[in-house]
């Protein structure tokens, strides 16, 4: 497909103009997401400052194994997706689809581990804050605050993951209809930015949940 036959909306001067603008739009949207999660991280740091011992106790209840496995899964998923982009820039739509599928499966694995296994275990151990919270004693209130942020933060991140999986599915669908080529790959690129961003948010959640306060 030659460049001149690519369509673009009438407010743009060329297909390239539109493609670059779409990418700028996604970057700006990710900036808003930085402020969104930033507010959460600020609240987290603030709450931890006033409840350090309780937060440490809470962190020690988390599953280091699942958390670390999930981190590896997400980083790999992001990498695989980016490799897919590299393929489509060379015109290889088939590889794009394959790599998107792998990235999707890894993302789904994250969700299964996080919500199907880890959360289920957390609830079984009565770690959800409230009347039946299992940590008693002087550190209860700090640990409860930790778990408020833990459940809230992982839920919001999980929601972003689900949206990301929907977007990757959309890319797989369009790619299978041969919508993308070496001269047009803006949607996969834009979705890739979002997917990598969701990964980076996890890279901040991971130490806040599993590492800080865990101790030797």
């Amino acid at each position, binding site marked *: 497909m030659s460049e001149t036959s690519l369509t673009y909306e*009438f407010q743009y001067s060329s297909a390239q103009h539109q493609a670059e603008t779409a990418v700028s739009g996604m970057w700006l949207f990710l900036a*808003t997401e930085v402020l*969104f999660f930033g507010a959460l991280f600020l609240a987290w740091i603030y709450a931890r400052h006033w409840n350090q011992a309780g937060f440490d106790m809470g962190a020690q209840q988390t599953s280091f194994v699942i958390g670390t496995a999930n981190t590896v899964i997400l980083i790999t998923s992001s990498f695989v997706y980016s490799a897919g982009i590299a393929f489509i820039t060379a015109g290889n739509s088939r590889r794009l689809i394959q790599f998107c599928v792998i990235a999707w499966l890894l993302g789904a694995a994250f969700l299964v581990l996080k919500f199907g296994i880890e959360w289920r275990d957390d609830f079984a151990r009565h770690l959800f804050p409230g009347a039946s919270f299992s940590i008693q004693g002087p550190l209860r209130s700090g640990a409860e605050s930790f778990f408020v942020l833990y459940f809230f933060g992982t839920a919001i991140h999980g929601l972003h993951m689900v949206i990301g999986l929907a977007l990757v599915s959309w890319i797989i669908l369009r790619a299978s209809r041969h919508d993308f080529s070496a001269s047009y790959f803006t949607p996969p690129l834009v979705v890739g930015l979002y997917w990598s961003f969701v990964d980076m948010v996890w890279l901040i959640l991971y130490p806040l949940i599993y590492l800080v306060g865990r101790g030797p």
Partner: protein
Amino acid sequence: MSMTATQAPPAAPSYLTDGFTLRSWLLTTDHKRIAILYLVSITIFFFIGGVAAALMRYNLIVPEGMIGSAETYNRLFTTHGVVMVWFFLVPAIPVTLGNFLVPLMLGARDLAFPKLNLFSWYLFVFAGLVVLYALFAGGVDTGWTFYTPLTTLYSKGHVVAAAAAIIIGGFSTIATGLNFIISIHRLRAPGMTWYKMPVFLWSLYATSVIMVLATPVLAMTLLLLAFERIFHVGVFDPAIGGDPLLFQHLFWFYSHPAVYIMILPGMGVVSEIIPAFSSKQLFGYKFVVWCSVAIAVISFLVWGHHMFVAGTSVYSALVFSILSFMVAVPSAIKVFNWIGTMHKGFIRFDAPMLYALGFIGLFTMGGLTGLFVAALAADVHLTQTYFVVAHFHYVMVGGMVSAYFAGMHFWWPKITGRIYPEMWGRAAAFIIFIGFNLTFFPQFILGYLGMPRRYHSYPADFQVLNVLSSAGASILSLGYLLPLAYLTWSLFYGKRASANPWGATGLEWQTSSPPLTENFLSVPTVTEPPYNYTPQGAVQPNV
């Protein structure tokens, strides 16, 4: 050949005649039609918020409160605040005048993301339906500021629904701001450098930066609030080591920049109107544009001035106080520049100019009274009283709403292709100015004397000033109903407008009134600086 207004010739083709079905409106991606959809929506919300205000002023005629129930009164001022802040003031100019004019002023055929634009309207409407449910099916009584732990642990009302509505509306705002920023960066017509852009575009750019950076913080804050209210545990609850002040910091980190989202577009409108009706270049263009940017930046640094008596440290108070004085400086510079524009001009007093001059006077009064509450020792006495209520109504209503009306009247011919009846326009401007001052000036005195805000009833010694204020409110209400009437009348019976009835500069005046769907027959090239007025009006077209 003379014609009576009712025998106007059939309309020339325009974006208004480009499809008459409901579908062509509800599924449009034309920024101009989306602007009209928004215009209808926010006008409805303006009147809902206005009716709430009218009932509040009615209640306050007698010390014991005309409306027997304190709970009802608390719900009324919450309705008034939530609706006016998020469903009128924050969107108003950006989604109506902004959506309509940004592509035209840029010399573009539409915004960067037209489908996102339509989606933002649907988000707004959905948010609006949820908020109407929250406010009327049961009600919310916490004030628009939603302080914890009142909202999280004690209030009986639809707090979570109201929070959800505001979050959804926030996404609409972010979408609009994102669209404007990208459009201004990427869709400027050939030859239009940044310093050739009209100030209205700079103002919307600054506004949009605040929109996209501050609104997400509000979304997160309200989500945390909703979590705490639903699960009865959270980070704002002192009983489990949380901190109610954390809520206030997060809330005001958004809500202070939010008030600059409200006023910056208004300043942009005034910066277009004063040169047009003085037939003179804007004085100090570069100062005015960089002041908009400065206001946007500094606005993020002053949130703590809402918390001087909240239990923060004296050091925090000192820092926020000096920064609050600093944020007023760029606004003052703009006022001087507007007046400088009038110097040696050729001043005409059509309705847009009257509203714009009213803006300058009332905004200056509001801004000066902001200094009172920025001054620490004075704020301790004046905060949480009617003084603050008067201060923010002077800037938001006397300022922003006047600017909105100024812009509506100025660009009405462009948007609708009709001229409104000028004498009615001038009469409404005067009635609004007088009614506004009668309503809100007594409140400065009431606040100094100590009358608290959000009080359903009050000590008898405050009655006279309250009655004065309520009397003013009835005049103000009349003033606001007039434009609704004559602007609607003009849609059917007004004289048809030419491309440039005011003789103004700007690319939007170089195309037909109303414009074609594609805005320009051919993409314009810009060679002249903005505001190159001559005494006879804009003789030099920009293309």
